[in-house]
């Protein structure tokens, strides 16, 4: 019997457009998993993913499909993360495929993120199978969405599959399209091994499990292997395919997808996009497309109580085992003590890390306002990277500063163009072009300083467009900007954790709003507290919190001390959660003041 044909594919969809449900349906139809064993959306197996309804880490799964003509095919479904922060990981999992299902929600239409991922897929030469999902819903706009897809892909109407993953409509058509439209994977087993790493995860018993797509040659147990970019060498201890669990297969041949265990202790040794080859069959060319993943957004993470510092260190180390994109290094803050400066791919990535630290590791943490990384050209010719506002050199020592810019696409119904132009203007956006996606929707192309979108941009975007606009971005370049460091002083003491870097034109307004926000958040103290915003030694805004004059419960009821005691214990607990700056006690929310400025 000849080896079955292999189809490697992924699903491109916006959050909530039904990717996971469709994946479930395919697994069920191919009997990869019995219906009764299904927990809803098996591919998203982290709690947090299920809760947020988004796939954060990609996974792969193999199915055996038997066609109506009784021919067997191997389907490798490679799942992709659904958020802009993880676009590099998306690009690598796309590179492992020959085709993609483009899933669009019939009630929502095409969204910015779908488009950017679609372009990535087309760039990677993937065959696209368009699917309109949720056609059974009352508010489905099948005609409009069909029109959008035709506009986008230049395909024919009859190429588009109408489906409802939930109601199991169109699933067979999708399976047949995978067989008929997606090119079979090439099986050049006689060439030297070249395999692409598209993901990895840490298993406490086996070390790092590497997910690979073999393009040429084959990898088998016992092979001495080397990673092209990291230069690390290992021995393949176990290889296999991915079904509902890992299944040893002793060998993975060209064209197939599987896993590799090689006694690797650290996920950082297995960089997504790297090429694996055999030491005894060196290759001169890696597979294309490798990039070093860089942190875009930075934030200080501090334990709420200082004695948790070691716990935090251990927790970050454990998180990092599964998250190579997370970076962290120790830093100290006058205000917050010992903590870590952490680097993230983007805001979502940051939120996920924070939430996992609190939920999975039971820590209470304080995070400082996120910022981007600046390139500072000093007057002495030195160029430094600054990822912490409090490390910004004195103004006199700075020649100029460059900040990261992104290129952004916003897709919106055309009635909100005016609102979004206003938002872009507020955020120092540079307008580039408009393209009509269909008669009613436009794709606005902008460039923004990354710092302007790291906080609350997404919320603003949604509120300016009544929830309809969607947004996608990619790093563009560094550009010179007139930036200043804005410090916050409490009774004359500078609070390093509250320093921010802002554009000079915005600094006065920013300082004013920050001071008044802090006035709201910092409770009255025994003394008057002066809140000042300063650029260098120049005070640009000031607020005063008057001294507390009364805080006492009048009576100890007929010798009932316990009541009084309980009240005091509660107050003491509250104080423990405060941070002491000089003589001023600051609640933890104050460190997020900037985030809620609007």
């Amino acid at each position, binding site marked *: 019997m000849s080896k079955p044909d292999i189809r490697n594919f992924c699903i491109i969809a916006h959050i909530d457009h039904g990717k996971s449900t469709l994946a479930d349906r395919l697994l069920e139809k191919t009997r990869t998993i019995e219906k009764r064993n299904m927990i809803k959306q098996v591919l998203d197996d982290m709690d947090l993913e299920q809760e947020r309804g988004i796939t954060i880490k990609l996974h792969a799964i193999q199915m055996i499909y038997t066609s109506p003509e009784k021919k067997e095919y191997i389907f490798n479904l490679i799942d992709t993360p659904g958020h802009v922060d993880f676009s590099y990981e998306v690009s690598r999992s796309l590179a492992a495929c020959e085709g993609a299902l483009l899933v669009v929600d019939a009630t929502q239409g095409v969204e910015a993120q779908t488009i950017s991922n679609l372009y990535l897929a087309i760039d990677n030469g993937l065959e696209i199978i368009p699917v309109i999902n949720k056609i059974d819903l009352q508010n489905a706009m099948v005609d409009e969405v069909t029109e959008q897809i035709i506009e986008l892909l230049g395909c024919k109407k009859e190429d588009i599959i109408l489906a409802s993953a939930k109601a199991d409509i169109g699933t067979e058509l999708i399976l047949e399209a995978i067989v008929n439209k997606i090119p079979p994977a090439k099986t050049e087993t006689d060439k030297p091994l070249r395999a692409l790493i598209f993901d990895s995860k840490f298993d406490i018993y086996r070390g790092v499990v590497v997910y690979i797509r073999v393009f040429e040659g084959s990898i088998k147990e016992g092979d001495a292997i080397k990673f092209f970019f990291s230069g690390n060498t290992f021995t393949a201890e176990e290889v296999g395919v991915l079904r509902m669990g890992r299944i040893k297969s002793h060998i993975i041949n060209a064209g197939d997808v599987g896993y590799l265990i090689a006694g690797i202790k650290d996920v950082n040794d297995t960089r997504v996009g790297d090429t694996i080859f055999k030491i005894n069959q060196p290759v001169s060319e890696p597979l294309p497309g490798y990039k070093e993943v860089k942190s875009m957004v930075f934030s200080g993470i501090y334990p709420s109580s200082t004695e948790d510092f070691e716990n935090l260190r251990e927790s970050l180390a454990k998180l990092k085992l599964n998250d190579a994109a997370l970076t962290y290094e120790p830093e100290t803050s006058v205000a917050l003590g010992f903590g870590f400066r952490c680097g993230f791919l983007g805001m979502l990535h940051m939120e996920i890390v924070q939430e996992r630290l609190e939920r999975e590791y039971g820590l209470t943490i304080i995070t400082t306002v996120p910022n981007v990384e600046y390139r500072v050209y000093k007057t002495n010719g030195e160029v430094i990277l600054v990822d912490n506002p409090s490390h910004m050199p004195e103004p006199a020592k700075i020649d100029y500063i460059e900040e990261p810019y992104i290129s952004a696409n916003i897709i919106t119904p055309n009635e909100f163009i005016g609102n979004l132009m206003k938002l872009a203007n507020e955020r120092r956006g540079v307008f580039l072009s408009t393209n009509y996606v269909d008669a009613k929707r436009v794709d606005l192309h902008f460039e923004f300083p990354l710092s302007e979108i790291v906080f609350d941009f997404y919320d603003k975007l949604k509120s300016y467009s009544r929830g309809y606009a969607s947004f996608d971005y990619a790093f563009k370049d560094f550009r010179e900007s007139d930036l200043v460091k804005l410090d916050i002083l409490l009774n004359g003491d500078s609070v390093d954790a509250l320093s921010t870097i802002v554009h000079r034109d915005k600094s006065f307004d920013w300082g004013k709003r920050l001071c008044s926000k802090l006035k709201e958040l910092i409770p*009255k103290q*025994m*003394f008057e507290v002066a809140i000042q915003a300063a650029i260098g030694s120049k005070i640009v805004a000031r607020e005063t919190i008057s001294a*507390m*004059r*009364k*805080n*006492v*419960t*009048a*009576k*100890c*009821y*007929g*010798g*009932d*001390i*316990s009541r*009084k*005691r309980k*009240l*005091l214990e509660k*107050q*003491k607990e*509250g*104080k423990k959660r405060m941070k002491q700056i000089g003589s001023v*006690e600051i609640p933890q929310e104050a460190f997020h003041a900037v985030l809620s400025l609007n």
Partner: protein
Amino acid sequence: MSGIYIHIPFCKRRCNYCDFFFTTNTKLTDDFLRSLSIEIKLHSATFPELTFDTISFGGGTPSLLGGENIANIISVIRNNFNISEDTEISLEANPEDLTGNKIEELQRSGINRLSIGVQSFIDSELKFLTRHHTSLQAEDVVKRALDTISNVSIDIIYSLPSQRFEDIAYSISKANELGVKHVSAYTLTFEDKTLLTKQETEGKIIRNTPEHEATLYETVACNLSTLGFRQYEISNFAKQGFESRHNKKYWELKNYLGIGPSSHSFIHSKRWNNVKNLGLYSEMLKKDELPVENLYELTNEELKSDFIMLALRAGGVCFDEYSRRFDNSFLLTYKTVIDNLVRDGFAGKSQDNFCLTSKGYAIADEIIARYF
């Protein structure tokens, strides 16, 4: 010396600000008095080493009981405990109960200190507080009480919604004019499940701002001290020699035994309270069972923090007393805190005592929670 507190759980009606335990069913009085006697007798052998020099009737409204009943209770107490000769026997009274020769009756029963629930000398304020006496009645009662039992205290409630400084100043000067020796001045508090809180929730009344409340407090403290009343606790002001000996037991971590439903006790580092329910209270005593619950022995740390908290709310931490009790030096343990608080005018320090000032009392909770 130790103190005895007797809780009389009856009121004619509930005042809008009150969340204390009481019943309006005065038919239960006889049954209650029988239970009280049983409780006193059950306790009699328990603390033979203690001598008591205060008996305090609180409530509820102890003045609802006749002089005879009071006399009986005092006599049962005298028969079952070591009672010192010069014992302070005080009773809380509502002005409307002190009619006819009630004051003389009470005096004959042994009461030598009266604490009268005047609350205000302004009729509109009394009405707001749902009290059932007028300012004239209050003045008359206070005068007669002072003639009969010279040791008279009055309760004042201040910081009524949008109360003016001159309003509270008027009640204070009236009290002084009448010759009262002691004033307990409490801020109006909005307790859960009171009519007052309900009125606030419904938007019918608006609570004072903390600023306004603070200014009223300062008016009270300043005016009383100008008139020669010494602030010896956050809410208590007395002429020389007229401090409440009983209340000081609470604040100085002395032993006190509570009798009656919902009363609290603290003896030999143990705290407990009696059950709150009058029916259950009587039922248990009929079976010769003490109606005690929440019995708890404080650790040394808890004693220490209670000692500091209570002392700072009242006459201050006595250094000798502190080192005798806890075997270390208050001054050394809290040196920086003490110096800073004294420097900033929140506290004063003498050779043997550290005490909050009036300004410090006003934010006592903050100071205690933050530093002690």
